């Protein structure tokens, strides 16, 4: 759409600016402030310069958490995106069942995140949970609080359970926008099912899939509540992702300086990756 140049439009944006400034800029300045100071308590602060950043970059703690975080995000995206597309391709297109499926699929998305954690914490318990009990009955010595692999598997399955529907709904929205004529033309051209997917469905879904990957990346990178409830970051630090580590540092140990420095770097990593996504996405928008 052709837009007109009008700098008075700033007045329309003003309320948002004020609100976001209050809820984002001021807190962020506090974080920056802390990140360059040190304290021995009693609200006495010393200039620490970039020490915290230097310490942080040299410490294994952050790198390990970042490594776990990247691995987690990569794994869940690698599972949820293809699975979500697959589910979307099989969803009913219209009618009563389409509504039912949509509502049921959206349910996990509307459950408070700590309850999601609670559900899986219970579900995976060997004594009272269906999953744990079943696995145990099958002779698998399943224990997500002790075994690192089991803990990871549980957290990943939980995330897949929680968020695959989001990807599926996005992909579904993309599929719904394809006119019937495309499918008819493909039939006439004798295109195989795979080619229909590759040359019609996938290109039409490209835009929404970028949104899906962006959202899943951002949200998985910020994941805190669900794994915290299920595993508490353990066993050991096995499922201590960036946010869990950060909260431990800031609210648990009140290491304000390092936590602030950690925060900023955390935020920067997300911004950087998201900026790349955003650029790609707006380019897609323009072409589409």
């Amino acid at each position, binding site marked *: 759409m052709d837009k007109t140049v009008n700098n008075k439009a700033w007045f329309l944006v003003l309320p948002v600016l004020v609100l976001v400034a209050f809820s984002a800029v001021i807190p962020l300045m506090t974080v920056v402030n802390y990140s360059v100071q040190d304290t021995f308590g009693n609200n006495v602060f010393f200039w620490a310069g970039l020490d915290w950043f230097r310490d942080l970059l040299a410490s294994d703690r952050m790198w390990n958490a970042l490594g776990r975080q990247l691995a987690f995000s990569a794994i869940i995206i690698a599972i949820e995106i293809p699975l979500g597309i697959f589910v979307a391709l099989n969803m009913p297109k219209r009618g009563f069942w389409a509504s039912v499926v949509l509502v049921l699929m959206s349910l996990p998305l509307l459950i408070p995140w700590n309850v999601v954690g609670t559900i899986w914490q219970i579900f995976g318990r060997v004594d009272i949970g269906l999953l744990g009990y079943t696995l145990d009955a099958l002779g698998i010595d399943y224990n997500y609080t002790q075994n690192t692999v089991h803990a990871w598997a549980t957290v990943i399955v939980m995330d897949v359970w929680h968020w695959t529907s989001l990807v599926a709904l996005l992909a579904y929205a993309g599929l719904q926008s394809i006119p019937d*004529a495309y499918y*008819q033309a493909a*039939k006439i*051209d*004798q295109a195989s099912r795979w080619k229909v997917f590759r*040359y019609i469905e996938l290109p039409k879904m490209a835009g929404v899939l970028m949104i899906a990957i962006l959202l899943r990346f951002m949200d998985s990178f910020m994941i805190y509540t669900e794994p915290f409830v299920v595993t508490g970051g353990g066993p050991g630090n096995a499922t201590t992702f960036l946010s869990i580590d950060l909260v431990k540092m800031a609210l648990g140990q009140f290491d304000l300086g390092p936590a602030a420095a950690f925060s900023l770097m955390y935020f920067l990593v997300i911004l950087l990756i998201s900026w790349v996504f955003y650029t790609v996405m707006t380019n897609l928008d323009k072409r589409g």
Partner: protein
Amino acid sequence: MAKITLENLAHSYLPNPQSEDDYALKQLDHDWDDGAAYALLGSSGCGKSTLLNIISGLLIPSQGRILFDGQDVTRAPTAERNIAQVFQFPVVYDTMTVRDNLAFPLRNRGRDEAYVAERVNEIARMIGMEHMLSRKAQGLTADAKQKISLGRGMVRKDVNALLFDEPLTVIDPHMKWELRTQLKKLHHDFGHTMIYVTHDQTEALTFADKVVVMYDGRVVQIGTPEELFERPEHTFVGYFIGSPGMNLLPAKIDGRQALVPGGTTPLVQGYGPVSGNVQLGIRPEHIRLSSDQGLPVTIRRIEDVGRHKIIRADLMGHEINIIAPEDQPIGPDMTRAVFDPAHVNIYADDWRVAPL
């Protein structure tokens, strides 16, 4: 290329159609001759897309059969019918190049690459897109995309028929004319059986050898453009074709003359007894204004469209249109209208009555 036969065909979207009104397409028998160009003309919702989808195999009819060269294909899937279709909105594979788009139907059928390359070049030349074969289809103009879909339909030499579903809807007016000319030329050069669905009479009349006019799920007339103009078999054809359409007046037939409001008008041939709702139809082109002969009219308005004048007049409470030559002066004494008897048609209950 093939002759397409529709036998006893009808279709209803309802599972258990009760009355004739439940049918989107009412019973129909028709042969589409091999190598002819047909236009399927009608207003929206008249069943023309239903008919097209039955021919292309996207829809299985509730009753009757479709034969391609005598072979029953009623239940055969689209791919087996070996037809090509161009849709209302251009369907191209955006992520492919123009070349790959054109090659797609051939590659899917496992033709060897040398043959594919040869055909693609040939088709590209025909549709005038040789210079952009290596471009991505995305971002091309609507008419370029529509040319690609047309090319994709023609790339297979052995297609039984080419179907067009209002293919020029999204094309700019000046490109419409060019594409239509190109289509006509392609038909002339290659002789495919072509069926062209449209609601635009100009498109239908200029493109087709024979026009099939549909109304309310029924084929009301099949004929050459001239036949549709001179002898509309149904009042709908008279009204739909021509601009403005045919005038219809309530009438009573009395041997060789017809009683219409305001007097009588002579007929060239006699009619037997005609019953039902009897109407006299005459095209505006065949009415002449006069100062002393014919039926009394009052002129309401004159529209000068350049080539000729359209006169909106009133005949005893019935609105009629008259077309007068551009150079004919129209004075205040022109209070009468003369019908040309050679071009008068008589209708009973909307269907044309043949003279004795």
